[in-house]
């Protein structure tokens, strides 16, 4: 996965996020980490999430290599592109 950011002033930023890094992050106990830092009133939304399923889904995104997930171009020249 690659993230390209271009600001209106002409600064360009390319952030490669390798799939192994994403796999690694999804192996962390995200649920516990997130629950610790979230407000109690919002916790009920997170309790609904099936984290294991979510992990498989995120990994399954790697099948779509080359897909432009997000492509935003503002008229001031700012561009954000997320490509798998």
């Amino acid at each position, binding site marked *: 996965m690659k993230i390209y950011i271009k600001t209106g002033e002409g600064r360009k930023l390319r952030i490669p996020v390798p799939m192994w890094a994403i796999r690694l992050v999804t192996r962390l106990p995200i649920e516990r980490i997130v629950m610790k830092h979230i407000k109690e009133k919002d916790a009920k939304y997170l309790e609904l999430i099936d984290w294991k399923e979510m992990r498989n889904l995120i990994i399954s995104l790697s099948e779509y290599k080359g*897909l432009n997930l997000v492509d935003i*171009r503002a008229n001031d020249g700012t561009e954000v592109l997320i490509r798998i």
Partner: protein
Amino acid sequence: MNEEISRILKMVEEGKIDSEKAMQLIEALKGESKESVILEKVTPSTNNHGNSKFKIKMLRIKVRSKENDIVNINLPLAFVSGMIKSFGKIPNININGMNDVDMDAMTQTILDAIDGGIGGKIVDIQTGDGDTVEIVIE
């Protein structure tokens, strides 16, 4: 039929198809009502979003503002339905007037629609200012 022709002209304008294909499409429209079949064939294979090699269904959200801001979001439909499933159901959001909405039924309806092969333009908004929002499954 006029609507279909204007749609074809729009596609030419946007560079999605060339004039030759447009001619074929219009001919087909005149001839018989196979237009929808042909349109379905042409649109995914010649779209210019750089995703043409994906044969799977995509949920596309396109926003164009009058100031020429462009937002394109492409999500594989399998990913969307998987997301909904991993949430179990769409959470009940506290918005006025939405308290009585049965979220379980709504979630099920959306999943059924996706499994049933829903397609085409779901949302098409054009404001007076010239902003447009399109949500398409193709």
